[in-house]
């Protein structure tokens, strides 16, 4: 990295100030507030709060409902991460064989995928619509009446499928550029060394994609845990009832709908710890990771 020497000592801080301010206002302050609130019992009707120590944490961790949501979150994240990566990889490999050399076509395709995710989310939700959704119609053809937002399993399936559907384009772009950055000569050397293209994929292409894959793994776990909030919210249609939900959604539900600020804060602190662990894991792996040159 290039070092720039500044003549005055305050100038670098001046340049950094906006960024630091944003991080403080939107991240550190709320985080600190959450940690503080997690040790208090807030009076929902105003009028102060009482210090209760780790009672909020105890309540959360012994709550059957919380454990149930945690379990769902685990399976939800596992399935969403696995399938959105697997499907994207499959599509990227297919696209890559077509796109070798055809640069303009590649850029065109990437553009489409870059715009896709928000639109894809919307389309995904529409697909499961009770009245006009084609997936609901297909299920009806087989004599199954899908009841999104009412039936637990139907709702869970819809949440998982829409979340996968929405994330595939993002993964696709990364995988495709990862594939395209594998030097042509290395592929050709492998072509001479190994007849079977299936074997070639698993012994050369896939390992060379590992850095991209690992990066995407972390991104996808984070996505499944946190960024699927909107999908879950839409599918649930404001009727939490006995519907499946993820931990993040429960934080929102308990805090803003249930007005249990203490419990909700404790839950978000637990999630923060999870993110911290994930980040530490990621940095450890990056340190050990092979840097291909």
């Amino acid at each position, binding site marked *: 990295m290039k070092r720039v020497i500044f003549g005055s000592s305050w100038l670098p801080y001046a340049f950094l100030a906006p960024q630091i301010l944003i991080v403080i206002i939107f991240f550190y302050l709320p985080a600190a507030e959450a940690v503080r609130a997690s040790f208090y019992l807030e009076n929902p009707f105003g009028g102060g709060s009482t210090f209760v120590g780790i009672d909020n944490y105890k309540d959360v961790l012994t709550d059957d409902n919380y454990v149930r949501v945690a379990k769902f979150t685990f399976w939800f994240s596992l399935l969403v991460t696995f399938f959105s990566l697997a499907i994207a990889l499959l599509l990227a490999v297919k696209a890559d064989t077509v796109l070798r050399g055809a640069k303009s076509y590649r850029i065109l395709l990437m553009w489409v995928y870059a715009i896709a995710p928000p639109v894809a989310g919307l389309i995904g939700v529409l697909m499961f619509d009770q009245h006009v959704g084609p997936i609901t119609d297909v299920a009806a053809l087989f004599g199954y009446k899908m009841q999104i937002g009412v039936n637990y399993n139907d709702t869970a399936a819809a949440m998982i499928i829409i979340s996968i559907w929405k994330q595939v384009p993002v993964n696709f772009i990364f995988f495709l550029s990862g594939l395209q950055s594998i030097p042509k000569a290395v592929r050709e050397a492998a072509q*001479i060394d190994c007849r079977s293209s299936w074997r070639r994929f698993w*012994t050369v292409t896939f390992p060379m994609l590992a850095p991209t894959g690992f990066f995407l793994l972390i991104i996808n776990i984070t996505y499944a845990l946190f960024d699927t909030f909107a999908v879950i919210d839409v599918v649930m249609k404001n009727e939490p009832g006995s519907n499946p939900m993820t931990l993040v959604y429960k934080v929102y539900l308990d805090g803003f709908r249930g007005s249990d600020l203490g419990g909700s804060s404790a839950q978000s602190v637990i999630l923060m710890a999870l993110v911290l662990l994930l980040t530490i894991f990621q940095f450890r792996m990056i340190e050990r990771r*092979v840097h291909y040159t």
Partner: protein
Amino acid sequence: MASVTIDHVTKEYSTSGRPAVSDVSLAIAEGEFIVLVGPSGCGKSTLLRMVAGLEKITDGEVRIGDRRVNEVDPADRDIAMVFQNYALYPHMTVRKNMGYGLKNRRLPKAEIEKRVAEAASILQLDEYLDRRPRELSGGQRQRVAMGRAIVREPACFLFDEPLSNLDAKLRVEMRGEIKQLQRRLGTTSIYVTHDQLEAMTLADRLVVLNKGEVEQIGAPLDVYRSPASTFVASFIGSPAMSLLNAASDGSALRIGDVVVASGAGLAAGPVTLGVRAEDFILAPTSGGFAMQVSYVEELGAGRLVHGAVQGQMLTLSISADHPMTDELIIAIDPARLHLFDASSGKRITPRRETAEA
């Protein structure tokens, strides 16, 4: 080991443009070291890659041994290729890089280990077997790429400018090693380079390519001594052969109004005269002409003098002891001049009844 036959092979990337390789035929004997040489873009790599199976053959046939391989998968052609940027597998150790092709061919583990160990000791890579490519220098990577080819014990080695990413000193060193290795293994080899010196030193036979067509095939010295065209004359040899516009009147060969050689046996008319730098005679007893010196390159062992005769540039090499003046009187060794058709550039072999006095 096997012979390789390239039979009227053509490659067209698009049906509209000029073919990248046009009707090339070449019979390579068992154990022969063939070098494809020519300027960048002349189709050397394309030709090599068609032998490897990495590029489809538009027209013609490639045979390895007696087997037509046009439709054969690259992995089944029994060839090994060394690429310009080594193309090593970055996630595999040196050992795995070398053994990968053998493993896929289901050779017994012991045999793979034996071959890798042998190749490593030939290439002085023993200490590096458990390193990854990124932990090696350019020269070492180059050796690993060679090792990967050697362990396969293929019918034919294919090299695509394997030394062009190395620095000058290492390049000369590796050049020697490749030559010795090929002698020792006796494997048929096709080697692509744009460096004429590399081509001259390595080849049993040179194939000079120009715009996808063969200009000349021959042993390095034969090509050097009797280039088939002005293209070959100016491409092979350093410094490049001086090419001068001359005219014959049937008895004398003139540059401008200076007689430079006998024109006996030549049809009257314009002709291109080619002379190698070492084939000029300095201060001849008779028949000399004047050359204006424009600049001198000192090479230590000798010097290269660049100058002009009648406004046409030429280069000669002289001993470093020779006193330098602004004007040199020179003549051309009549046995060693080359004549080319002024319009087609093809070599003319004049009937030389009398040597110049």
